[in-house]
């Protein structure tokens, strides 16, 4: 697979003499990038993120003469399909996508099918600022091998309204107790929605006592024994869940909406700063507050990658380098802007933290667990 990537890179090089390779110097990259338009396929569901990328585009244009065009997609898997179509047609140069925002399964799939350009992260001058104590070289246990650069940190946390719920439950067992005392007030997004599946994984980590087998590829004989407590737990939870477990919210956004509508007592999110950002955006009440469970928050990092056939790889490198710069990262962590935690150590640079601290983190299980849990959930609860 690595070979095929090198071949692809060589082909790119042979078609156009000026094209850069992962061995190119940064000066060559900057020169090549001038005047390029980088098509960045990224989820476009958040007005705050879209606004942030507009700002990044302005800075990139004035500093590097690179235009960053945000191609807003509803689901990045659309883009993975698109790249697959390009590969099927043998389009190994001049691809339509220059940069993607991915992690987890999408990364694994792109890596597995050699759809990524690189490795490139050590080419980036701003790589020096990246906080190497964060798990930036694995993506859901899959080694990144420098094929994607970190952009921000996701932590599975909950939001509650401090006026309505003073002391929120801080563990999955406490959550069940709470739900049994207050029927109809707890729910989670329906798997295979990303947050819903993550809820299952986090619950399983706690209920299995953080079994180390969760971090290896799933073994089907062991799956039933290891996951049994989770299904018992969910059987009990669904009985007292929102809408008696007949319906589940469709997304993290819906749980926030339902929290604000007073239907749920807890919303679920991957942004540890979501409550502040949502208060600033008017979608949550000022008394909303983010918290994590005692055992820690399921944590992962979201990344930026470059497709193997990108037409403007140099421009993409410049854009990624800018997006991991202290300037861009500090702005990104501002709740008024986006509120996504930085992947650089801000305190070293400015002497200030980003205004909030990350929660103690739990690593993501092996991706095969997610698939197995989603399938099993579907078997048990997928049909009403």
């Amino acid at each position, binding site marked *: 697979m690595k070979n095929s990537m090198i071949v692809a890179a060589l082909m790119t090089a042979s078609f156009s003499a000026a094209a850069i390779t992962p061995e190119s110097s940064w000066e060559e990259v900057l020169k090549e990038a001038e005047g390029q338009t980088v098509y960045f396929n990224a989820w476009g*569901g958040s007005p705050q993120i879209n606004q942030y990328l507009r700002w990044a585009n302005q800075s990139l244009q004035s500093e590097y003469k690179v235009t960053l065009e945000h191609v807003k997609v509803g689901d990045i898997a659309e883009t993975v399909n698109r790249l697959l179509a390009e590969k099927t047609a043998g389009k190994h140069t001049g691809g339509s996508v220059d940069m993607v925002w991915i992690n987890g*399964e999408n990364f694994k799939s792109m890596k597995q099918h050699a759809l990524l350009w690189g490795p490139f992260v050590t080419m980036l001058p701003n790589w020096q600022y990246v906080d190497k104590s964060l798990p930036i070289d694995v993506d859901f246990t899959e080694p990144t091998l420098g094929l994607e650069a970190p952009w921000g940190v996701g932590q599975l946390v909950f939001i509650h309204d401090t006026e309505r719920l003073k002391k929120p439950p801080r563990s999955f067992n406490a959550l069940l107790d709470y739900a049994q005392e207050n029927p109809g007030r707890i729910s989670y997004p329906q798997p295979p929605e990303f947050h819903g599946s993550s809820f299952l994984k986090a619950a399983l980590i706690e209920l299995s006592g953080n079994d180390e087998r969760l971090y290896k590829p799933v073994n089907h004989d062991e799956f039933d024994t290891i996951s049994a407590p989770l299904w018992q737990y969910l059987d009990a939870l669904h009985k007292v869940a929102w809408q008696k477990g007949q319906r589940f919210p469709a997304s993290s956004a819906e749980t926030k909406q339902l929290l604000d*509508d007073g*239907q749920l007592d807890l919303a679920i999110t991957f942004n540890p700063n979501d409550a502040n950002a949502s208060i600033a955006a*008017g979608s949550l009440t000022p008394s909303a507050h983010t918290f994590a469970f005692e055992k820690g928050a399921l944590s992962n990092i979201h990344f930026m990658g470059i497709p193997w056939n990108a037409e403007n790889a140099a421009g993409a490198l410049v854009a990624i380098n800018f997006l991991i710069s202290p300037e861009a990262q500090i702005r990104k962590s501002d709740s008024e802007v986006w509120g996504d935690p930085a992947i650089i150590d801000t305190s070293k640079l400015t002497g200030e933290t980003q205004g909030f601290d990350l929660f103690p983190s739990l690593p993501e299980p092996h991706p095969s667990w997610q698939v197995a849990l989603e399938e099993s959930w579907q078997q048990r609860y997928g049909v*009403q």
Partner: protein
Amino acid sequence: MRYTWVYWTAISLILVPLLPGFAGILLPALSYIPTLGYTEFSVSGFIAVFDWHGVTQSIHVTLLTGTVSTLLAVCLSFLITRNLWNSQRWRRLQHLLTPVIALPHAAFAIGFLFLFSQTGWLARIIDPISLPLLTQDKWGIGLIVVLTVKEVPFLLLMSLSVLQRLDVNKQLTAAQSLGYSPQRAWHALLFPQWLSQMRLPIFAVLAYGLSNVELAYILGPQRPPTFAVLVWQWFNEPNLDLFPRAAAGAAILLAIGLTGLAVWWCAEHAYLRLTHHMRLKGKRHTPILSTFAFHRLLWLPLIVLPTVLIWSFTFRWRFPDVWPNQLSFKYWQQEVAHILELSFNSLAIAIPTALFALILVVAILQFQRKRIPMALIAIPLVVPHLSVLFGIQVFSYWIDSSQHWLWVYWTHFLFVFPYLYLSLRSSWDNIDPRIEMTAMSLGLSPWQAWWKVKFHYLLPAICIAFGVGISVSFALYLPTQMLGGGRISTITTEAVALVSGGDRRITAIYALLQATLPLIVFGISILAQQKSQQRLMPPKRHAKQDTIYALRTKKPHYK
């Protein structure tokens, strides 16, 4: 025939992208995807589909919502026609139809959600406990309601030209003179004729009901979802090794759609045959059928819009407050710079596409005796866009994928053409050939006879078909996104991306835009039609005479 090339141009414009489109479904469905290392044919994709727990329930719910909504829509359109025929309200109704048809399905669904969900506006006004669950309910009732209400105007519109042809008043008079009550005459005499003339529009409605994704996703049941939603979710599965399952699902969805149409066709024939002898017996008894004001339902899509409007200006609006706590122009201000460009793109795609399709349709209907095979029209309506587009996309890379606009135009044409063809075909087939003959006998050339006389008879239908084409193009997401390579953004691509974030205020802005843009174009085309119609009409009569005229037409003619 001299104009055979027009016919073949249309056929090839549809077939050329459909063929690779089908290859794009069938080869991966049979697990042939060399890029992913699958080089041997197998049916494992189909096995994977049926291994998915709940797939039979999902197909059931698809069939249930698709057929029930179509049946309801057909019955309601007929009853509304019967109840309002010859009344003042019938004329007013015709004006109402246009805005309702122009409203894209997704915008209506969003408005419906804002109004009827458990924390919607209605629940804020009245006690939420007493509200039935109408969104994402197990039986898909909300979905059926929205599909039905949205399709009735389309069917009514289509039936306008059918009724013109049937010369309803004359038939009613004849029936009454034989002792049939008007109601009985409608049911025994007019309904069978109406039903068979309406077959194509009904096919479009049924096809949409069985294969729509966005409505079912927003309002349909979720455990399990409808089959179209399921296939769409499979296509969005990051694990590319599951691609054969998605493609097999797409092939099955196509089969479900085509079977649905075949079953409808059989059922229609069986019904007509079964009721044939009843008609021959000449039973004159009137079945008691409600004269309930079904047409009120037509207002529903417009009633949901005020909620959407309010949400677009909201900053904070907590449940269960009846009015927003804090209003703001913030989101409009933030979006306005982009809205202009996006609207321009939407129009720049929709108008040329609809115009081109219109010219082709008119040319074929006018100059060709041959009609386009129904299957060819039905396929673009039934087939899941995602799967066909994958094949088309691969095809575009082989030729020249950098022609983004060209490919976007072509794929939009593929999905717009069938609607235009359906809208206009019956108008053409229904027009009395003697009109043209008379014109020619008065000394006009065939061209003049067409342009100066027949065209004006058809102009209302043409204007409305054009509007339908525009709104279909406006609402297309995947063709723009996939073939445009992200270079072309429209109101709809922006809306879909933002709706995935679930922010009601932003969703509201884009739903409104989606609703108003086609409405403006529709309005302009209707105005243009009325202007040209006025030139043909004799000088305006006075209002008083107008009513007398209306009264007179109500009386039976005996000559």
